[in-house]
């Protein structure tokens, strides 16, 4: 596989992100696979930000550890990025802005282009220097300038011919500039793929799955979902920005009891506020979907950095016990598929479904082949729209599978109360004057057991609660979940190319876990746990469910997104010193 990692670095407000997006768009149009990731700070102007775009002729699983091409928009970009430069890296810079003394004579190819000068001469607009840098980059990668011209026309024609011409002239000048030549020569297959980030994919997936209501308070890195739903209100969904996450959660429960597919989303800090409402949803058996896009914690932590440290939190959030499903999509593509399925699970089992994303998945951009929406079905479970028996409706009827018929306010005959207190089959309280009386002690036992039985039912009826194994004949297995899966798959591939037999066992649905099937998959294998937290939370969950302790671990908690090559190095080290 041929691939190249390009990093654009500068200050907030320099157009770093839009430049990365443009490169990805052009590359994608030329049929290359792309993977984008943004390194940014909790600051609106200034600071040091970068955008890494990796382009390849095969599917990419991470943004790549080492930089092949650096576009250094300011001096800090040299200072902070020099340690990330790969062997023979190309550094594109404007000598009027950037001095490269500190990286001279280290084998890097330093390409001096008067970016600002070119931009101002053609357009008079200094920000267009980025277009010059992109022009040169395209030449180094080996992308035909004609593709760029087409993209620019699509994007900017509405702003007038001059804007398009300026873009093309500036890019062309840099493309043909002295010292700029094709180095990587990566050819696309001409296939037009879709490119999007995880938040967008999850939004589209849940939309396709019938989400009608999304309530949220802005919080990085979940805000992308908020922006998507806000922008698509004209498609028959109701988006509600709330005063806080307490309201976001409780509105979603209210809407869910009201009969619509309702979701709320946030990051860990906001999820902390949602916890009480989550338990409420568990008690009234409201099918809600709750998204926690994790960032580096605890507390405010690193708002613009990633982590997978909320796993145990979402699994155990709230007092008391109730059934819940916890799922961590493993890729942008899976955000679409799982997004389309979560409401079916929520409504089938009348329980909250918790979706664990993280900054690395929410904000990574991947090219994907597509989303097959045709097989998406809507299963509303035991929804009852009328009751003409004349008997009072038992919303919380004790059933063998634990799932009760569900009525919707507004429909005749299915009237009930949804109470956060313990209740009987009708929803009448047994918490106040009846609690502790023998008959109601027994009823409490039965009501709680009814709810909890849904866990057995879902384990029996669904095939999703086991991890996936990539290559059962491998000698070592990297065990992981969620967003870290793709970099881990890349690492396994790199190690296999080096002659090691390394497979991957990855989890998306984590709770409940089919203990027997998971145990028989893991048993007797040489396992290496890979996750982005300090306490090996997935390994803890595996141990609790299967009794298997994974002693070999690669744990990251520096906030930075892992890459395949980076994990391969660590895994090689662990394999060398493997603890039996």
């Amino acid at each position, binding site marked *: 596989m041929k691939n190249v990692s390009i990093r654009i670095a500068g200050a907030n407000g320099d157009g770093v992100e839009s430049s990365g997006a443009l490169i990805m768009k052009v590359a994608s149009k030329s049929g290359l696979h792309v993977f984008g990731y943004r390194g940014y700070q909790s600051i609106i102007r200034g600071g040091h930000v970068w955008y890494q775009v990796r382009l390849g002729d095969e599917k990419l699983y991470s943004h790549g550890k080492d930089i092949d091409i650096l576009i250094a928009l300011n001096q800090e970009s040299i200072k902070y990025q020099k340690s990330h430069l790969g062997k023979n890296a190309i550094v594109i810079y404007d000598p009027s802005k950037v001095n490269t003394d500190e990286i001279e004579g280290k084998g890097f190819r330093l390409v001096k282009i008067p970016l600002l000068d070119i931009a101002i001469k053609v357009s008079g607009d200094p920000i267009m220097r980025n277009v010059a840098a992109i022009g040169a980059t395209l030449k180094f990668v080996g992308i035909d300038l004609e593709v760029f011209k087409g993209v620019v026309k699509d994007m900017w024609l509405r702003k007038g011919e001059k804007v398009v011409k300026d873009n093309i002239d500036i890019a062309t000048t840099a493309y043909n500039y002295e010292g700029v030549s094709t180095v990587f020569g990566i050819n696309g297959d001409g296939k037009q793929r879709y490119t999007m980030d995880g938040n967008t994919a999850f939004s589209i997936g849940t939309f396709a799955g019938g989400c009608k209501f999304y309530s949220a308070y802005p919080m990085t890195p979940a805000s992308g979902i908020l922006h998507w739903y806000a922008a698509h209100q004209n498609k028959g969904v109701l988006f509600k920005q709330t005063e806080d996450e307490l309201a976001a959660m409780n509105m979603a429960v209210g809407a869910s009891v009201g009969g*619509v597919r309702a979701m709320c989303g946030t990051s860990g800090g906001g999820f902390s506020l949602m916890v009480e409402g989550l338990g409420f949803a568990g008690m009234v058996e409201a099918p809600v979907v709750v998204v926690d896009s994790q960032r580096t914690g605890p507390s405010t932590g690193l708002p613009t950095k990633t982590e997978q440290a909320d796993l145990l939190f979402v699994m155990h959030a709230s007092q008391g016990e109730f059934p819940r499903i916890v799922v961590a999509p493993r890729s942008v593509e899976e955000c679409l598929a799982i997004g389309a399925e979560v409401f079916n699970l929520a409504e089938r089992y009348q329980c909250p479904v918790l979706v664990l994303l993280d900054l690395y998945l929410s904000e990574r951009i991947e090219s994907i082949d597509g989303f097959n929406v045709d097989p998406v079905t809507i299963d509303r479970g035991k929804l009852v729209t009328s009751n003409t028996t004349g008997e009072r409706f038992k919303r919380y009827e004790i059933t063998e599978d634990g799932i009760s018929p569900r009525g919707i306010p507004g*429909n005749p005959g299915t009237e009930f109360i949804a109470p956060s207190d313990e209740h009987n089959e009708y929803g009448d309280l047994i918490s106040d004057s009846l609690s502790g009386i023998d008959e109601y002690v027994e009823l409490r036992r039965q009501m709680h057991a009814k709810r909890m039985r849904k866990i057995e039912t879902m384990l029996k009826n669904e095939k999703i609660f086991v991890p996936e194994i990539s290559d059962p004949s491998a000698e070592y297995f990297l065990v992981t979940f969620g967003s870290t899966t793709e970099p881990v798959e890349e690492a396994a591939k790199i190690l296999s190319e080096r002659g090691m037999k390394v497979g991957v066992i990855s989890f998306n649905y984590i709770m409940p876990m089919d203990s027997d099937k998971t145990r028989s998959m893991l048993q007797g294998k040489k396992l290496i746990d890979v996750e982005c937290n300090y306490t090996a939370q997935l390994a803890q969950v595996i141990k609790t469910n299967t009794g298997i302790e994974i002693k070999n671990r690669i744990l990251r908690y520096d906030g930075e997104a892992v890459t395949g090559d980076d994990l391969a190095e660590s895994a090689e080290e662990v394999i060398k010193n493997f603890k039996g």
Partner: protein
Amino acid sequence: MATINVNPKPTYASTNKHVWCPGCGDYGVFAGITKAITDLGLDRSKVAIVSGIGCSSAMPHAFSTYGIHSLHGRLVPVATGLKLANDELTVIGTGGDGDGYGIGVGHLVHAARRNIDMTYVVMNNEIYGLTTGQASPTSFIGAKTKSTPFGSIETPENPLAVAISSGATYVARAFSGEPAHMADMIKNGIQHKGFSIIDVFSPCVTFNNFNTYDWYRSRVYKLEGTGHDASNKIKALEKAIETDTNAWEKVPIGLFYKEDRPTYSSLDMTEKNGPLVKQPMPTKDVVKEIMEEYR
């Protein structure tokens, strides 16, 4: 789907035993809500009573309508979500002063400014009853409670002033000792399109021996007939803060403020097309079209 009621002559009461202490003001509120919805002839399957936590929050269980008995302080967002899901429902919030003016007061402000079309009846007894008698946000300075054994040193909240200045479009006060007047306030609140709040003095006969029926009876007077102009926001605020300036010598009840302003649902671009719950799931073609935006 046909909307034939199972029970053609709706009786709104459930068969549940009431949980309130003998003499509790909340019985009066139950009677007031019952009279209001009976007078309006509402279909009980189209009524949802949403409460928080506290003595007064047992209210949904007294009715045979739909209901949600939610969390302490969260009845307003739960009711908002339910109303946004189905604009055809008559949503009545029933809670107490601790619930609505203490732990949940943040939501009150936002539901008011959004003008969510719901009716919020707050049974205000200036005490925490279900937790056996601690000071509430409306307890008076000097009130001796279990949490203020030496007398409260906090100025009580003025919920009507909060509601009016937050943008509520129907703001009234009633008293459990004046049941017919209260039923009117509630009925008018239900009929009002927008966020209606009725603060009801609902005496706690067990834990508040200061703000008693007699105490109120000797103080309340009805705004109706005083020439109060409920369409004038400044005048409404003046009336709302009257008790702050006259040491509760005279206490106005009745309609303080009323304004016609479009409801949230009438402005929301999705709800404009009818109740959300009745809107179809997206077609596969719409999803495919959206996907193309990302190619």
